[in-house]
């Protein structure tokens, strides 16, 4: 089985983000970058499938600036077999990223694409879905459990939906996007880090994919959320109810 895992380089969710004064983006100096947490969960799941099935190939792919090598190397140290970086200095919109991934899927022909449900930087939650529809592949998003049939030809996915869990099954190849509670990603181990140095990390320029100028969505301006103003104390319940009516207009 071959599993393709697309990952994205994003700012560490633990760091404080500051918006540039001109609103063109966020300040990236001294900001730590990591593998998008949902992508990391997808990678962990792929590695578990590989271990359970006693042999599957896990291929990492990312689209991003050259420094994304760091995140790919980390993924290789965790246990992925090889990696590919589409070097793109500009930011792509989800549809364009999906177009690039579609071409990679066609070249690699994996049995499964395991991706994060969304990245924590722009929270678009679109790439997996657009990729599935453009390939005309079955998809299961927000996976909290992934199980394979004995012949490895079919996958059953438990999805976290509003109000409960839903199970869907489809024949491979297909696309699964991962939710938060699917697993807890492992740490890169010492032997893993040593081995990662010798694994393949191929770089391809974005130009090779002919998507220049294809982006339909552009970021115009970023602004920090308004600061929360201080609360107010009220003397009586009547006063509170009154204010909820007249000022907050909640009731």
């Amino acid at each position, binding site marked *: 089985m071959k599993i393709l895992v697309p990952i994205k380089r994003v700012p560490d969710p633990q760091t404080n983000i500051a918006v540039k004064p001109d609103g063109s983006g966020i300040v990236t100096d001294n900001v730590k970058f990591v593998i998008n947490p949902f992508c990391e969960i997808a990678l962990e799941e792929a590695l578990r499938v590989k271990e359970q099935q006693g042999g599957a190939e896990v291929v990492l792919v990312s689209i991003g600036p050259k420094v994304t090598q760091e995140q790919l*190397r980390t993924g290789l140290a965790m246990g992925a077999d090889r990696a590919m970086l589409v070097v793109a200095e500009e930011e792509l919109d989800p549809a364009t990223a999906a177009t690039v991934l579609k071409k990679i899927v066609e070249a690699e022909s994996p049995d499964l694409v395991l991706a994060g449900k969304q990245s924590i930087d722009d929270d678009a939650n679109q790439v997996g879905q657009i990729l599935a529809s453009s390939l005309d592949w079955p998809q299961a998003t927000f996976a909290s459990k992934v199980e394979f049939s004995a012949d490895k030809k079919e996958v059953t996915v438990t999805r976290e939906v509003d109000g409960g869990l839903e199970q869907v099954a489809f024949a491979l190849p297909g696309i699964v996007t991962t939710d938060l509670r699917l697993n807890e990603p492992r*740490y*890169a181990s010492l032997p893993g*880090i040593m081995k990662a*140095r010798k694994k393949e990390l191929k770089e391809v320029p974005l130009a090779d994919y002919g998507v220049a100028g294809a982006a339909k969505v552009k970021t115009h301006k970023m602004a920090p959320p308004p600061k929360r103003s201080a609360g107010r104390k009220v003397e009586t319940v009547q006063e509170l109810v009154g204010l909820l009516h007249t000022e907050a207009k909640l009731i």
Partner: protein
Amino acid sequence: MIEWNEQHLMLQDAVRKFVDTEIKPNLEELEHGDTPPYDVLRKMVRTFGIDAMQRMRFEKQIAREKALAASGDGAVAASEPPRKAVEGDGDTMGPALQLIPIIELCRYCPGMVTAMGVSAGLTSAAILSKGTIRQKEKWALPLLTLEKIGSWAITEPGSGSDAFGSMQSSAKRRGDGYVLNGSKTFITNGPYADTIVFICKLDEGNEPRERKILHFVLDRGMPGLVQSKPLRKMGMHSSPTGQLFLEDVFVERERLLGESEDAAGRGGRAGAKATFSMERSGVAAMALGIVSQCLELCTEYARTRVQFGRPIGEFQLIQAKLAKMEVARMNLQNLVFRQIELSAHGKGMSMAEASACKLYSAGAAVEVALEAVQLFGGNGYMAEYQVEQLARDAKVLQIYGGTDEIQISQIARSLLSH
């Protein structure tokens, strides 16, 4: 080596994450609740595959020693120091991978490093450098993987810096073995140790000063061996320290390291001193962890603590403290880089250099940690703030593994001997 490379940073990152999830939330319990550190340490060793790597390295070394022994010259094989046969290839990965977890652990729990270092470092190294192949296989490997916990017992109530001169612990020949007596104190891991390297003098009725130094391996629960409860101490609470009492403990000859009384060159005083040298060189990495953490905490505090209407970082006296801490951090990092580089080329520090390195590192850690308490003011004196713990932990670096005073005398002796 002038900076950490991508792989080093990757490991640093992974260990930091581990410390954040496994140690930080349990710090209170580890520091103040007598929870032994071994389960967390074992989990760390397993998580990062350190145990598998140690086993692999050990098996390679033993195979080499066996081949040497089989080639007929057993004596050569046995006296070969452990890693000398390996020519350093200049690759910094191996040594860096050993030091990075030490640095990262010391940001929160220097005691854990002490507990781990004494077991997987000192005790196993003593067996590896002095033991026979059979002894190494039996006792050193489980220590390297932290499957078993080890103690290296040299200090006694009446013998500290003058470790060998005033040593009272004794071995007397009886039949095919020896009868051991004595008491040891300040023994790291003592309360929980499975394997103890016990250092004593062979009593042949001669002058105590002339007696041979012997190393024996003891197991937990041997008749006549008592391991005390953890002693209360100033800092390093996550490292259990205890006393050992031996009353007529009978041991077979197979427990004598090297299985010979005349293993003087590699056993005896020189052997113990080689172990000291190794113990000393680990202190720079520990100090780097403590100092880095203090600096990070202080920088954040200086930015956010407001007095007289502005962040205290705007006051020059606070700036001076931060700048001095940064200088210490840079110096320590360079010392650690030098150690890694030396080790990558198959070299080690001389005793005098290791002493100088320890003297500086311990002093820097104590100074920075106390200044960190000062910078935090009243808060810094409260156990709620981490600098309080780090300041207590740092102090022992100037005492154990040879006091500052002993390091100074060793540096001076080396300078004056030419």
